[in-house]
């Protein structure tokens, strides 16, 4: 039964295979950032709503034990954690100052922490179809922090905590897993908990903002701010595009009501893109602290992220004929290739695969941009204004795709 359920979750397997392939390519090109990319991707995928979900109403009506749903989900999630980590272990270049043994221990530690995270997510609300989104996002956030501050605890202690914790949580799932999965909690919620929050001001735009910025936007903000703080504009732009793609898909499928309202699509698009850009910028402020580099580099990084995001948005919006959601991945792949090409060429021909902290594109911009702080502020201000204007003018063409089914069937 578990094999049957896993077999039908093949989209997850395609994602895992794609991630492993991306890591292998990144490692082959000699990017140490690939490790970070892999960990962030795993965390983001674990935070996806599909990952938490154990079954649907369709599946729950079938004669399948609740325990089988859990096992299938756990196998799928643990593969998501361990398959990319195995690829990293096998192919990744060693980060500076690390022996192979240290690196292996480090990755096993990360795997153990992520495994504990998977069990934490799945051990909550065991009787229901899915754990709550806030719990999933919270656990993923804490796991991310645990990975960052992993150095503080010895590997042996970390592994012991993770293994014991995972076993205890697996036992909890085993004991509490119901025979039939439940749609809602057994006990009724208190009226206060189920009511709407009252502390928010009653502004008329609140429904629009709620539709565009759901609670799990916190995760997107955290990832973008983190990439901003570490000065990884390429990674940041790709993640931003990924989340923009997801948001556009949600607008089409779940928030269709918003498209029927007299709200300018340009404004919706500007809100979606702008929020991601600002998230990256918020992280950039902390870049001097994280990378010990002058603030000017942070500004340059932010500009690169901004330009990339804009370029990606333009490509994604203007490439004709690919408006069906099923081609979204192809669009993203093309976009990623377009961004990566100059970087790959630069690495192959300029630095011969030797890892440098500052990328060739950064170096180039570093030489071009003015040095004075007032000029920098002016440059950033003008760039932002230009970005905002272009994005606003660009609109939201991807949403205009009537007759989808007849066109693509």
């Amino acid at each position: 039964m578990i094999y049957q359920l896993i077999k039908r979750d093949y989209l997850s397997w395609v994602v895992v295979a794609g991630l492993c392939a991306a890591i292998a390519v990144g490692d082959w090109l000699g990017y140490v950032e690939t490790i970070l990319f892999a960990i962030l991707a795993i965390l983001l995928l674990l935070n996806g709503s599909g990952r938490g979900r154990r079954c649907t109403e369709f599946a729950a009506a079938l004669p399948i034990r609740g325990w089988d749903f859990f096992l299938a989900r756990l196998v799928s999630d643990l593969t998501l954690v361990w398959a990319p980590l195995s690829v990293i272990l096998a192919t990744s270049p060693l980060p500076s100052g690390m022996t192979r043994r240290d690196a292996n221990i480090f990755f096993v530690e990360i795997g153990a922490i992520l495994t504990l995270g998977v069990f934490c997510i799945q051990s909550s609300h065991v009787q229901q179809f899915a754990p709550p989104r806030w719990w999933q996002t919270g656990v993923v956030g804490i796991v991310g922090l645990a990975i960052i501050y992993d150095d503080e605890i010895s590997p042996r202690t970390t592994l012991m905590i993770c293994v014991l914790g995972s076993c205890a949580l697996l036992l909890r799932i085993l004991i509490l897993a119901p025979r039939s999965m439940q749609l809602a909690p057994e006990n009724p919620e208190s009226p206060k908990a189920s009511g709407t929050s009252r502390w928010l001001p009653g502004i008329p735009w609140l429904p629009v903002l709620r539709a565009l910025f759901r609670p799990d936007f916190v995760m997107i903000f955290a990832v973008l701010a983190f990439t901003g703080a570490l000065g990884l504009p390429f990674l940041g732009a790709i993640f931003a595009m990924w989340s923009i793609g997801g948001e556009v898909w949600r607008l089409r499928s779940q928030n269709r009501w918003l498209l029927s309202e007299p709200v300018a699509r340009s404004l919706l698009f500007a809100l979606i893109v702008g929020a991601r850009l600002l998230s990256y910028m918020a992280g950039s402020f902390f870049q001097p602290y994280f990378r010990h580099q002058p603030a000017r580099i942070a500004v340059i990084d932010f500009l690169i992220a901004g330009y990339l995001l804009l370029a990606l948005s333009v490509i994604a919006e203007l490439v004709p004929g690919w408006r069906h959601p099923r081609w979204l991945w192809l669009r993203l792949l093309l976009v990623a290739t377009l961004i990566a090409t100059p970087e790959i060429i630069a690495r192959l021909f300029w630095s011969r695969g030797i890892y440098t902290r500052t990328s060739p594109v950064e170096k180039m911009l570093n030489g071009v941009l003015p040095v004075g702080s007032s000029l920098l502020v002016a440059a950033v201000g003008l760039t932002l204004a230009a970005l905002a204007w272009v994005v606003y003018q660009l609109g939201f063409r991807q949403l205009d795709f009537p007759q989808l089914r007849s066109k693509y069937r």
Partner: protein
Amino acid sequence: MNSVLEFLNVVRAYVRGVPILDGVTFSVAEGEVVGLLGRNGSGKTTLIHIAMGMLFPQAGSVRVFGSSPNERAVEVKKRIGYVAEEQVLPRTSSIAELIAFHRYLFRRWDDTLEREILDRFGLHTNSKILGLSKGQARAVALLCAVCHRPELLVLDEPAAGLDPAARREFLEVAIQFLNCAGATILYSSHYMNDIERLGSRAVMLDGGKVRLDSTVDRLREEYCLAVVPVHSLPDPDLLKKEPGCLGTRMYYANWHVVFQGSPEQVKARLEQSLGSDGVRCERMNLEDFFVELLGGKQSDDLS
């Protein structure tokens, strides 16, 4: 006759103090076709989910084939077919994959019926669910629900949103299945014509309780609508005190009152007891009955 499905004082609330079901009690016998009626939010889907073991009742008990659907979930579900409006089939699967999965789950699988339904709805087994129309997707759900020849078929507004022809096709397959196998059917719908065509018995939920439980024929024969001009009787309480009164509501310048009894008897009784002129009594179809009983603000508790 044995009870296939039994609800006994079932209570269920999602928010504390606001029960959706507040002591629902009724049972469905073997081979019976029961239409579950009620307004939006009356608890029909919740009741069906409880029967399917997808929700725990907070009080009372549910028995399906004499067992609890939560405790003996797999055994019970093997004998049930289920189609719901909100049921989303796995979009990336093909029809053939879904059939193969169901064939794996249910050892007893009727290939002839499968072929028949595929032909009838013009379905190709290599089509993906993603590319199917709403009606075709619902037909696939029906196929998955009936081809293992379930003893109980649970349909939760399965034809909502379908065009009349597709809805009729859907019902015909369900009826055909019923005739062949003598299965029990619990059918929830807002289409009263469908209930009349398919159902032998109607259970009406209102205010968390069973407001009415009767056969469709009996509803037509034993109940009538009395139209009383407001000017002749300004106080509706007098009507409510009349024996056999089920509910009143104001419609323009008239009181619409549902009474138990034949139109002639009720008219004579009202004229005699209230002395009001211009009373008109008529028979109702199921839809009129539903509107008169549950429509408007008036909703009297029969208990």
